[in-house]
């Protein structure tokens, strides 16, 4: 085989080459090359596609979009007519493959051809039966896959007919094909909303924006135009990112020209554009979109070159302001450069720069941030303010695998943190300060309800995370059922509020008999530095002993972000096993793993009781 490009092309160049001209042939060529180039030691995310039509070029798109998100993928595609069999039979390639993600992409036209193509020859009862059969097939597939794998599921919903079959009645009649398919799609929503790690790929909406090509469909059963391939693979990439926890957390807004029109320092509070009528309404639109994001758990911050008093005046007194100061988790209004301010905001909120999204209307500021802080996602607003709202609503970087109570309450949690910081300054000794917080820690076992949040913590926690192993909720629950395994959570609250579930530890059988291994020990950054980690380690050791283990091994797996915990175990009396080793041991019962005295109350799961505080 000849070469189509030089050998030493690196993955980044390859991706840039596709972005420069995103054609089907470039995607295919790049995907082929990426498969060769990805280092084999990095485990690829295994994606299985169950389909009943030609999806093939999509596999290449998925590979390239995955790589762009830093996720190496391996894709396997099932046969045209075997989706049901593959997912229902125990002996099938699907389960041998041990997929991390299963995409179910079924065309109704193939699944139920009479229903889709000759709908009006069916009686209402017949049509209803077919619809029920389709829904039940998908339910069966999903429950079989769920029973045998911990994979994340992405299920395509169904495209509506290209044209109405019954004229005006199509939209009026409950029993028209359009409305039958809509109810079928509703059933999929019901199925997905009752399960963890199941996503619906909105093919209904997608097919309307980028219609199927009838020629390619009939001649090659290949419905996808380049436009659909792009859009569909974007959705898959979003799911991969959400699954990997690589979503962003903070929306940082500029003021002048962004959340209002004009310049507050020159135009004054009565001169800026903000209100019910255009053009002020466009800025209200942006603020409303930002407010909605904050209700999804995205933190809002302000970063503006202005006099702080001018900006405060707008927030306090402008009648059309949608955002309130209380919606903001951080604020830098001063004359320092934006890069410095963004760094300060990241530090205030205890997140990495790669959690920030920066929104500004000024191309120079945007370029400066892109250059100085490449980890920050920069949203340069379009020239027309009427397009601002869409620019914010189109952001696809905030997806979480499941919305938890903590997500919804995150803004409030940060408020509590700020009050706590203020109180800290009034105490002379740190111990006194901690005592004054009246901290309560509750250690519990994983259950169906807490699994989503615990999985989210394994996905998102980078700093205080000894091993940085990522799990989905399904994987955690499956792991917890194994013998010798215990998965613990810790919740913390104090007089300033409830921080919620903030830590996870996983005890697993070690290499030697009688030895337990701490597979995972992590803590959300919002409670760092208050001794919660010692309570969690103490509980982990107690529970390991309870399970009958004699020794406990703790391992540190270094990453770019977790240097702070490099000596966590040796600092607490764990012994090194070998020179330069990054795992340490304690014999249970010999070393005292103390909990800080300033906790008002600590509770453990039922078979654990607080008593002599030894490991």
């Amino acid at each position, binding site marked *: 085989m000849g070469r189509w490009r030089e050998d030493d092309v690196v993955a980044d160049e390859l991706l840039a080459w596709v972005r420069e001209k995103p054609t089907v*042939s470039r995607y*295919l060529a790049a995907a082929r090359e990426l498969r060769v180039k990805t280092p084999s030691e990095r485990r690829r995310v295994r994606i299985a596609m169950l389909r009943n039509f030609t999806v093939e070029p999509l596999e290449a798109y998925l590979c390239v979009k995955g790589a762009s998100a830093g996720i190496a993928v391996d894709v396997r595609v099932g046969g045209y007519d075997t989706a049901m069999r593959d997912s229902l039979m125990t002996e099938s390639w699907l389960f041998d493959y041990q997929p991390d993600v299963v995409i179910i992409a079924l065309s109704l036209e193939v699944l139920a051809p009479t229903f889709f193509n000759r709908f009006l020859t069916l009686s209402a009862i017949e049509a209803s039966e077919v619809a029920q059969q389709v829904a039940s097939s998908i339910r069966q597939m999903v429950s079989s896959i769920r029973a045998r794998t911990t994979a994340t599921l992405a299920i395509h919903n169904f495209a509506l007919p290209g044209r109405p079959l019954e004229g005006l009645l199509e939209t009026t009649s409950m029993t028209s094909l359009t409305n039958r398919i809509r109810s079928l799609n509703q059933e999929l929503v019901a199925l997905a909303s009752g399960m963890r790690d199941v996503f619906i790929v909105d093919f209904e909406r997608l097919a309307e924006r980028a219609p199927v090509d009838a020629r390619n469909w009939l001649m090659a059963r290949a419905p996808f135009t380049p436009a659909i391939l792009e859009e569909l693979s974007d959705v898959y990439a979003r799911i991969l990112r959400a699954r990997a926890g690589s979503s962003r957390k903070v929306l940082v807004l500029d003021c002048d020209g962004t959340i209002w029109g004009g310049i507050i320092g020159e135009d004054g509070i009565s001169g800026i554009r903000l209100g019910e009528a255009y053009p002020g309404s466009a800025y209200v639109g942006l603020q409303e979109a930002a407010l909605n994001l904050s209700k999804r758990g995205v933190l809002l911050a302000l970063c503006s070159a202005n006099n702080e008093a001018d900006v405060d005046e707008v927030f306090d007194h402008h009648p059309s302001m949608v955002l309130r100061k209380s919606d903001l988790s951080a604020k830098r209004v001063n004359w320092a450069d934006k890069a410095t301010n963004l760094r300060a905001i990241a530090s205030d909120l205890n997140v990495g720069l790669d959690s920030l999204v920066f929104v500004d209307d000024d191309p120079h500021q945007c370029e400066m941030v892109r250059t100085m802080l490449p980890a920050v996602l920069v949203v340069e607003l379009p020239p027309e303010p009427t397009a601002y709202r869409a620019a914010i609503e189109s952001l696809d970087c905030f997806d979480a695998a499941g919305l938890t109570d903590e997500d919804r309450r995150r803004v409030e949690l940060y408020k509590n943190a700020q009050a706590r910081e203020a109180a800290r300054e009034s105490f002379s000794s740190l111990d006194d300060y901690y005592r004054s917080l009246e901290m309560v820690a509750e250690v519990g076992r994983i259950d169906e309800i807490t699994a989503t949040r615990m999985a989210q913590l394994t996905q998102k926690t980078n700093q205080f995370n000894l091993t940085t192993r990522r799990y989905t909720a399904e994987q955690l629950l499956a792991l917890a059922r194994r013998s010798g395994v215990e998965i613990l959570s810790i919740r913390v609250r104090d007089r300033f509020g409830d921080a919620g579930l903030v830590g996870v530890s996983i005890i697993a059988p070690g290499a030697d008999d009688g030895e337990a291994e701490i597979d995972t020990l992590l803590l959300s950054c919002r409670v760092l530095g208050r001794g919660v980690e010692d309570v969690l380690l103490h509980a982990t050791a107690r529970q390991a002993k309870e399970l009958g283990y004699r020794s406990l091994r703790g391992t540190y797996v270094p990453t770019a972000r977790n240097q702070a915990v490099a000596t966590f175990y040796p600092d607490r009396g764990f012994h090194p096993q070998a020179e330069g080793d990054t795992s340490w041991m304690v014999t249970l019962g010999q070393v005292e793993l103390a909990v800080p005295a300033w906790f008002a109350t600590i509770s453990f799961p039922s078979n654990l009781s607080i008593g002599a505080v030894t490991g």
Partner: protein
Amino acid sequence: MIGAAEEVRLKQIFAELFELDPSTIDGTTSIDNVERWDSLQHISMIVSVEQEFGVRFSEEEMAELLNYERVRATLARKLA
């Protein structure tokens, strides 16, 4: 006629899709002697050429585009 620049672009598509060295692509390159040119890649080739040159092949033409020369000649007719 098809210009030299267009021919380079066309050969590039074939090279990318079928993993070929562009200099080896000529009138003899066909679905019969290119390993990667199967029915799946065939539809990708057609979509790619259409995407690159902003043309659309008719159903009748589709069935005949089984070698490079045929694709080149059909494209030349469309671009004329």
